Every structure is written in C-alpha cells, then in structure tokens.
C-alpha cells in the first residue's frame, strides 16, 4: 500500500482538528442530528438555507460543516424511526421495520445504541475507504451504465420479495404497486405526464418521504389509537438500555456486512445509498439464523441497514470529490456550495487542494466520533420520551409530520397526499399487506424503467446488451439464483405456514 496515505491523513487531521473547524464540524453534526430526527426536514433544505451564512467562512470550514449536516442527518434519522416508527430521513425507512418493534418491546435503548455503534463503525470504515481508494472506486462508478443499473434493479426487485415475512404473492403484488406508483409524474424519456390527472403537483412524481411517512407514521398512529388501552403501545418494562453480550454477538457480523454493502452501493450515483439499507436488510434476513425474527424486533434488522446507510453516505462523496459528479440531491447542492466558494469540484481537487480534500475526509471521521459521543448519552433521554402518555405523544408526532411534509415543497398538497397514504397504509395493515416491499418498488420503479428504456435506446433495441456486459450479466445471474431459492418448494411451504400463523 502507498505510504503517502499516512502523510495525507496527517495533513487532513491537521486541518480538521483546528479549533474553528472542530467547532463548525460540531455545529454541523448537531444541526444534522436535529433535522435528521425531524421528519421531512432534510439536509437539502437545511444546507441551502445555511449557504449564505457560510460565505463568511473559509471554504474548508464551510464544507466541513455542510458535510456534517448531511451525515449527521443520516444518524438522526434512525432515532425517530426507532422511537415512533417515523422515518426521519428516507434512508432510515428500513430501520423502522425492526427498530420500532424493539422499542415496543422495551428495547428502544438497545436499538438506539445498536444504530449508533453500527453507524459509527460504518462511518469509520467508509471514511478509510474514501481516503484510500477514492480514485479507483470512481472508475467503478464509470463502469455503471444503463444496462448495469437495470440489472442491478432487477436484483433489487427480486430481493424486495424477501423483505416481506408473509405471503410471497402479496409481497410481489405490493412491489408491483410500488413500481406503478413510482411511475406517476413526467416520463423522463418522452416528457409525457402520466397518472397526474391534471394535478400539477404530481408532475414531478410522488415524494418518497411523503409515501413513507404516510405508510409508516400515520398508519401506525391510527392503528395505535384503536387499541383498547393506550398503555399497550409501548411496554412499560424497559429491559436494558445497553446491548447485552448476546446482542453484541448477534450484531457485529451484520454491521460488517452492512458496512461493505453500503460502501459499495454508495459509490453508485442514482439511488445507491438508498438501496444500500434495503439491500443490507434483505441480505441479513437471508443469511441470519434468526431470519424468522425479522420484522418482529431482530437486532440484525437495525444493525445492518444503519451501518449500510451511514457507509453509503460517506462513500457517496467519492464521485463528487473525484469526478465532480453528484450521486444524490445533497451532493448536487454540495457542488454548488463548493463552486460558490471558488472551488471547482472535479478530478483536480485532490491534487490542487490537498488540504481541502484530506481535511474534509479527516473531518468525516472526527464528525462520526462526535456523533457517537453525543448520541450515546442522549439515549437515556430519548427513552424517557416513550414514558410520556401516548395521548400526548401522538398529537406531537402528527404536528412534526405535518410541518415536515408541508415544508418539502411549501404546498398543502403533500400533506393531503401523506394523509391518503396513511389511510392506504392502515388498510394494508388490516389486509396484512406489507408496506416495505411497496416502498422498495417505489424507489426502483422509475429507475428501472428509465434505465431499461435508455439501455434499449442506446443499443438500438438489442436486449442482448444485458447479457454481454459482464457486470450486468452478473446481476442477472444473481437474480435468477435468488429467484430459484425463493421459489424452492420447501421454502415456500415454510412461508405459507408462517402466513397462516400470522
């Protein structure tokens, strides 16, 4: 290995550990945690709002703070997911599945600690990956074209079915429904408005956050309110706040796997990081011997996706720092933030502005450390929140959701839409149709269609390209293998049994 990495990192820490940079890193991660906890309020709006404030700062200080907001938000997003089944950030949707169940069983502290440790570990490893392999990994991003993306989406789609723990048929139908809902809005290829019915608010499609908050948050509140006794919502006996030895034993492998999956998918522009948490969850469910506990409060179901989304958040800086290509909306805004500070993001940043490049990487590690140090003591406080009577808790959740969703585009329509998805989510609960596969389909749908049509356009209608390109072919083969495993009769039988029990 190249020894210059150490001198580079030393240079980076020299920049990141100056008092002013430490201070702004702290401000960034604190603010990030706050907006991460608050549903709907995301890093894009916050960073845009803070941009003018950063003009008075040096470029590196400004970028350290803005980056802190981004990964701090990933961190905070899991808190509301675990405590009240409310995905604070889109990447924490998966954490709702098992994290919230753990909270209901009095294990909120364990879930929060798991999320924090998983995120911290993943953040450290992913930062190291960025430091050591950023340029070669950027080449990987270049290898992904429309056919590779499409095949990856196919694999994701097959994996989506694994997400469900009930009937496979219904899970597939829910995935399809998600795919279809994802198509609402302007068609990328033709510019035609689809399924918008003259509502201009639907022209850009339905927002993921809106759907997730409706299906999870609102539906959960309505379901809880019909319980006979509100004390049924959260059990009173909080077992332990800190993970036990058994918990540690169960979580470390999922954290490791989640970290690597997240790091890998985070590099891919176009929804990579979002897919990472879903992917990590599905993977764990397949490989874990506690697979049957998933969806009922399995600690692996918190550890793996949290590690994955935090790792993905760090590695998504790779295309930005090395190619000047943003991998998501936050990174696009970071490009603007860099430009307005007089830095042109792209291949030269690393050579021409080494203090900036390495300083930012070092600050990510510092920021992750701050997050874990700040958040672990907070757990006790968060758990206290669950002892608040539900009749007081739920109107507060409704308030934060409504404000957050309204702020997405400053339009009441999104609040209405969230309400509709809340009702739909409630009906799904009653009919035992799980929302997680729908959400994954919802993310994959538009990406899949877009890339399929683009690949076909580029190949002039020859579907062979999906098989002649090695990466694409690899994904398709993996999908077929996974499909066969899924459809093997004995596994299906086991699933049917589980379904009848439920």
């Amino acid at each position: 290995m190249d020894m210059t990495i150490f001198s580079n990192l030393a240079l980076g820490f020299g920049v990141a550990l100056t008092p002013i940079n430490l201070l702004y890193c702290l401000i960034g991660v604190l603010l990030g945690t706050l907006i991460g906890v608050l549903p709907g309020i995301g890093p894009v709006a916050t960073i845009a709002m803070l941009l003018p404030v950063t003009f008075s700062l040096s470029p590196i200080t400004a970028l350290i703070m803005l980056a802190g907001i981004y990964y701090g938000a990933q961190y905070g997003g899991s808190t509301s997911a675990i405590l009240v089944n409310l995905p604070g950030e889109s990447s924490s949707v998966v954490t709702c599945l098992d994290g919230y169940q753990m909270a209901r069983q009095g294990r909120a502290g364990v879930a929060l600690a798991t999320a924090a440790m998983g995120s911290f570990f993943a953040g450290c490893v992913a930062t190291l990956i960025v430091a050591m392999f950023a340029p070669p990994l950027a080449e990987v991003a270049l290898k992904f074209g429309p056919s590779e993306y499409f095949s990856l989406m196919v694999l994701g789609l097959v994996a989506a079915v694994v997400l469900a723990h009930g009937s496979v048929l219904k899970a597939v139908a829910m995935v399809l429904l998600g795919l279809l809902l994802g198509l609402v809005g302007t068609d990328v290829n033709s510019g035609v408005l689809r399924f918008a019915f003259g509502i201009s608010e639907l022209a850009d499609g339905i927002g993921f956050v809106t759907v997730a908050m409706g299906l999870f948050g609102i539906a959960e509140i309505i379901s809880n309110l019909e319980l006979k006794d509100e004390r049924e919502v959260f059990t009173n006996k909080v077992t332990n706040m800190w993970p036990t030895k058994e918990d540690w034993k169960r979580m470390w492998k999922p954290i490791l796997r989640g970290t690597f999956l997240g790091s890998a998918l985070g590099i891919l522009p176009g929804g990579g990081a979002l897919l990472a948490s879903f992917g990590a969850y599905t993977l764990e469910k397949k490989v874990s011997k506690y697979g049957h506990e998933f969806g009922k409060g399995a600690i692996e179901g918190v550890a793996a996706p949290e590690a994955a989304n935090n790792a993905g958040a760090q590695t998504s800086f790779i295309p930005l720092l090395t190619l000047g290509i943003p991998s998501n909306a936050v990174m696009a805004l970071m490009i603007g933030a860099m430009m307005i500070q007089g830095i042109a993001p792209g291949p030269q940043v690393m050579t021409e502005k080494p203090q900036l490049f390495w300083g930012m990487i070092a600050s990510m590690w510092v920021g992750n450390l701050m997050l874990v140090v700040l958040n672990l003591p907070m757990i006790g406080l968060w758990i206290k929140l669950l002892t608040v009577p539900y009749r007081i808790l739920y109107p507060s959740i409704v308030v934060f959701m409504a404000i957050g969703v309204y702020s997405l585009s400053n339009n009441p329509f999104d609040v209405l839409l969230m309400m509709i998805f809340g009702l739909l989510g409630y009906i799904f609960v009653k009919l035992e149709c799980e929302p997680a596969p729908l959400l994954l389909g919802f993310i994959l749908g538009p990406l899949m269609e877009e890339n399929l049509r683009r690949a076909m356009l580029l190949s002039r209608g020859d579907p062979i390209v999906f098989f002649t390109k090695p990466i694409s072919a690899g994904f398709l083969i993996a999908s077929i293998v996974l499909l066969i495993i899924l459809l093997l009769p004995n596994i299906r039988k086991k699933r049917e049994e589980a379904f009848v029990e439920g």
Partner: protein
Amino acid sequence: MKIKSPKDFWAGLMFIAFGLFFLFVARNYQMGSAVRMGPAYFPTVLGGMMAVLGGIVFLQSLVFAGPKIPKMSFKPIFFISLALILFGYLLKPLGFILALVIMIFVSAFGGHEFRAKEVTILAVLLIIFSVLVFVKGLTLPFPLWPAFMS
C-alpha cells in the same frame, strides 16, 4: 362462492382494482416499440401483472382458509385525517400558530379521552417549540399570523 380468507379476498380485489386502473389509464399514452418504448409500455406490463396476481390472491381466498379482518375504527381515521387537511390548507390563510392550534385540538379528539386542560398545555408547548425551531431556527417561510393581520 364462499370467502374463506377475508383478508386475501379484499387484498386480491384491491390489487385487481389498482392493476386495472393503471392498465386503463395507460391506454391514453403511446405504447411504442421495444426499441423506443413509449410511456405506456411499462405501466401496461406492470398493471397487467398486478391484476393477474390480484386474481390469484382472490381465487386463493376462496380455497384456503385465513384470518378475519380486524375491526376498523373510524374515529381516529376521521380526526387524524381532518387535522392534517385543516393544517395544510389553513396554514397560509390563518398563519402557523392558529393552524397548529386547530391541528393539535382536532387530532387530540381522535384519542381515547380528551382532556381539555392537558391538550391546551400541550398546544402551548408545541407551538413555542415549533415557532422557535421551524420558523426562527430553520427559517421555514411560514407566516405566523393570519394574512389580514400582517
């Protein structure tokens, strides 16, 4: 015909309805060819698959026994939905503070018991917190008071 699994019966019907809906609406768009797939291509294929799957779930519900659908409770549905809609559409005309008051009180009616004093205290605290964090801190562009007053 006897419904043996009510959950699947209705779920199947729901899937069929959604599938046919997308299928039907997609007929307004161009189908295109495999090379230049039109905007109708994907939704037609998916909608069709969904309707077929829904059909299978539906038929299964007539053969295999399954659990009953738990009772729906309409009180929370009504009050939570109403609270959200009122907040969304009253925020601009009435301002943030009044819209919050309305939302908090209406949603509180959806619970088991409504304690006026408790809800009032909650409303005051939530409003102070929201104004400080969202309007002052995060500078969300919400008017605090009704339009005619500012």
